[in-house]
């Protein structure tokens, strides 16, 4: 019960508390404290030092352990920098956005943890809807037209998508008709245990609906649009949260249903659908990297790309699955750094357009370097982690699937890389004739500190590749019926 209270109830209470106490400083400190507690507990559980009992509808398995760790890791750092971020000047209208900031953050944490931990489709659905509700007002933080539009679109599209996911869940119950599952409730493990009995037609249908519905939240093309708008207009910490953890919260649902399908005859079909989705996302990112002229949208598209890559990895299975899991970790961490640096740049230049941002390397040297390093990390340059996870995914696709697919993936990635690079270097190095070349001084605040720490963590995980993570990922793979030699 303790674990449950720390993981879910405590954030809820904190949210309530933040509603009562208006003082931002107090809100901040208590939220950080809660985030820290959450992180420590998750970490302890992840290490397997401590097993906690959860009430019905909730349970731990290796997958939720892993994703919960990612979530609470992202959340902790984001909350840590939030205060500094809130201190920044925003328009007077946006002042009121600050009031609900921590409230919503805590609510976000609670709902996300619940969604990750829930082992019942109904509960999962409810909590996922809650995550949407928690994050939508945060998107509206800036209180301007773009933010409003983004929030509306996100809220509406995702709600519709989630509704479709619900239909999928109902189909799942249909598929259970006339089997031993008849009359039992919608627990994952029940279904996984007796997946072979399920009616394939309804199973396929439910997979399609759940995958497409949740895609609006994961950002799998062509349902990515609402996600892009939201991520690009939300304040940077929120954007980091969304790219890092919220998408995974949705992904976990798809993985559950996929896990159910794997032993059945519809496995091939589901794989194909996932691969199509992943490729479409890569293609979308590939297309929009040519057009995009707003650096936060660019980062959002990069999230689409990487989630697509993860989906491909999951679909391919084998070593690629392991790669995908690693990729989820690395992508989450790297995205934080990218979005935080982007936030610094935004607060300096007051614009999100690439053309208007120039010579960052000299004007904001520290941020500039962090931005550059994060770019190298996200585009898979060693020693940063994504290099290794990408290699695993490529290898998997190459050996388990056909190399032609790999060729496509590589071509897409290559051009995404080239165009992203062009944009990044335009921002970092390009300068006007009369502009200064002498580097100006940039204050060192907690955002830089956090970014540096995260990059170090990234390299550390990648290079040392701790056995506990590997074992956990292997367990996840085992749940998905994947055995590695």
């Amino acid at each position: 019960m303790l674990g449950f209270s720390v993981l879910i109830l405590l954030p809820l209470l904190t949210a309530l508390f933040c509603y009562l106490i208006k003082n931002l400083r107090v809100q901040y400190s208590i939220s950080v404290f809660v985030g820290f507690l959450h992180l420590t507990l998750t970490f302890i559980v992840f290490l397997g030092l401590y097993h906690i009992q959860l009430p019905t509808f909730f349970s731990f398995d290796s997958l939720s352990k892993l994703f919960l760790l990612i979530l609470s890791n992202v959340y902790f750092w984001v909350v840590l920098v939030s205060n500094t971020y809130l201190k920044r000047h925003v328009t007077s209208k946006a002042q009121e956005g600050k009031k609900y900031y921590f409230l919503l953050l805590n609510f976000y944490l609670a709902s996300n943890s619940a969604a990750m931990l829930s082992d019942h489709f109904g509960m999962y659905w409810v909590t996922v809807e809650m995550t949407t509700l928690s994050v939508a007002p945060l998107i509206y933080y800036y209180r301007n037209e773009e933010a409003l539009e983004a929030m509306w679109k996100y809220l509406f599209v995702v709600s519709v998508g989630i509704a479709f996911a619900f239909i999928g869940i109902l189909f799942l119950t249909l598929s259970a008709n006339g089997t031993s599952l008849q009359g039992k409730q919608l627990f994952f493990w029940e279904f996984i245990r007796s997946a072979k009995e399920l009616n394939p037609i309804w199973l396929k249908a439910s997979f399609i609906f759940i995958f497409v519905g949740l895609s609006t939240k994961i950002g799998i093309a062509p349902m990515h649009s609402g996600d892009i708008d939201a991520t690009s207009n939300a304040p940077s910490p929120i954007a980091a949260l969304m790219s890092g953890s919220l998408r995974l919260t949705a992904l976990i649902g798809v993985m559950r249903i996929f896990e159910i399908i794997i032993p059945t005859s519809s496995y091939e079909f589901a794989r194909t659908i996932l691969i199509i989705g992943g490729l479409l996302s890569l293609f979308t990112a590939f297309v929009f990297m040519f057009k995009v002229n707003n650096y936060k949208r660019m980062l959002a598209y990069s999230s689409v790309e990487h989630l697509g890559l993860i989906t491909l990895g999951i679909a391919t299975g084998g070593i690629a699955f392991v790669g995908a899991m690693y990729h989820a970790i690395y992508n989450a961490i790297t995205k934080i750094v990218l979005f935080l640096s982007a936030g610094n740049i935004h607060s300096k230049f007051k614009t999100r357009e690439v053309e208007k941002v120039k010579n960052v390397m000299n004007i904001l040297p520290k941020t500039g370097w962090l931005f550059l390093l994060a770019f190298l990390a996200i585009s898979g340059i060693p020693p940063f982690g994504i290099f290794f996870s990408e290699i695993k995914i490529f290898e998997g696709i190459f050996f388990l699937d056909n190399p032609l697919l790999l060729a496509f993936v590589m071509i897409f990635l290559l051009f995404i890389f080239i165009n992203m690079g062009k944009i990044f270097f335009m921002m970092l190095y390009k300068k006007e004739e009369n502009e200064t070349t002498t580097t100006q001084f940039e204050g060192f605040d907690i955002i830089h500190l956090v970014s540096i720490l995260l990059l170090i963590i990234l390299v550390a995980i990648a290079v040392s590749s701790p056995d506990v993570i590997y074992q956990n990922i292997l367990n996840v793979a085992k749940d998905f019926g994947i055995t590695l030699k």
Partner: protein
Amino acid sequence: MNSLLNSDNILFTSAFAIQFISIAFLFIKDQHKALFAANTVLLIGLTLGLFSTISSALFSSAEISLQSIFFNFIRLDELGTFFLFIIQLVAIPTTIYNFSYLSHYIEENRSIKSFVIFYVLLLISTQFIVIANQAILFLVSWEIMSITGYLGMMLEKEKEEVQKGSFYYFAASHVLIFILYIMFFLLHQQTGSWFFSDYHLSFSTGIVVPIIFILSFIGFGIKAGFMPFHFWLPQAHPIAPTVLSAFLSGVIIKMGIYGILRTYLFIKPVPEWAGWFILIVSIISAIFGVWYALAQHDIKRLLAYHSIENIGIIGIGIGIGFIGSANNLPAVEVLGFGGALLHTLNHAIFKSLLFIGSGVVYQNLGTRNIELMGGIVHRAKYIAILFLIGSVAISGVPPFNGFISEFIIYTGFFKTANELKNFYPILMLMFVVGLAFVGGLAVACFTKVNSIMFLGSERKAVKHFYTSIYDYISLGIFALLCIVIGFYPQPFVGIVNKVIVSNFVSSHPSSALINIDWLFFTIIFSIIALGIFFLFLLKGKLEKKFGKRTSPAWGCGYENINPRMQYTASSFADELNEISKSVLVYHKKVEVSNTAFPLPSKFESHSNDFVDSKIVLPSYKFLSFLVMKIKFLSQTDIRYYIGFILIIITIYSLIAFLW
């Protein structure tokens, strides 16, 4: 396998450690001190490394047993050691040049610390590439090499051209790493291992190995700069800081050669078409590389194109070696690979010499355009002499090292023709003529460079020409190496022969390489040198007797000649460029006014790279044009978002039904 703590291992590992430690010294506040300390420590590390390399594998027979330290991730076979030798040999004088080069930047109070960090990392990762025995380690060090090279190029990051050129390098290196992924996946698939020492494939088994060969040639060829994969090279090398472009041209593009040879070791013996393939690509690279070089005015760009030419010559050697291994002729193999390896060493030496020399000039004149130089010999005689040595060497003219390696390759041609009769002689003769043609072009090009840069009178007034002792030291070392290898090639040929005999030629090694009458060269060249010396003394005496003075040059009756009347680089090369206008994309713009009071007339000529301006950029533009056409995804209306959900669900359901 001797004990872990033998002197070799300690020396070797400590060398790397010291090189790495040098970064720590950059925390010293004062940039001058920091640079001096870091550079010195780095030098110590490199020198130690060089000693350990020389002592370990090349001369003595003691093998470094690092396997036991790094779990077989690292191995020093002869090939790797030879390239390690090259890297360290080039790195030492280049690092010495750092002292003077970077101090220029410090005086412009520009921060050079990050550059030094990247430089050190570049050196270390490059050394790791050649000793890596495991695919992932290899790829990691390869990527780090590329990326640190890129970051180092960004020293003058505010310049437009720097951003452009370095980005070419960046993109190209990313392309090739993907190709290498696939290649290593294939190797892994074939052998089930990630370790180089387990890769023994034979061409006969199916289609896979040929694919591996092609991939390796493309992937590593991009790095090496074979045409038509060279397009990034003339963009990147000119804009890099001189130290870096010396190292890039001297060593890093050789990593491509290393890769190709390494892959050859995995899949030898190769069939004959592979040899011909490489021969033809290489001769094209050689001829057009030097021809492009002839059309350039930017000295570093010109040198970059010469790197392409020399890579071509190396490739020719490799091609002969392949043909030898295909027909199982150890003699041909030895000559071909020997020429290639020795030329790799030589090119590393004289190309770095030339780049550093041009860097010294650039530092003082502030331009890379040779049309604005001239008369430097009157300012800095010894720089001119050292540069001249490099030029003679790179033109493959005796008595310096360039000639030696080209001679080996020629001998390889003759050998091939002898061993395999019928139509081989005429084909080989074609290549001989091609190589001779390349030599002629190189002579034309470097006479142009030297005369326009150093000789004559100053086209653009030079206030003061500042040279530091470090310039002379680093250039001097390189020049000395050129001369030594030229006059006394035996030991170096011996090293190369050892490498080949132990790694390449499996069956009954031949001694064709050593049996060339090297003694003759030593004798002849020394006779020439002595003869010139004695004539010089004699001439001095006679001039005392009959008198000697200087007078203004004869202007054909025209009295006041001014520097702008000198022959320019473009006019020197004009006739040759005219011949190959279309390939060179060579444009001339002449503006002569025929008015009564003529205005000053203009003339300018420039040459774009064919592959870059006619293939790479257009295709990228075309692609982006196509992509821009794709509109349906970029809808802003929420109803379309919902519509997409509906559509995609229908499509998936259709798939489900058809399944």
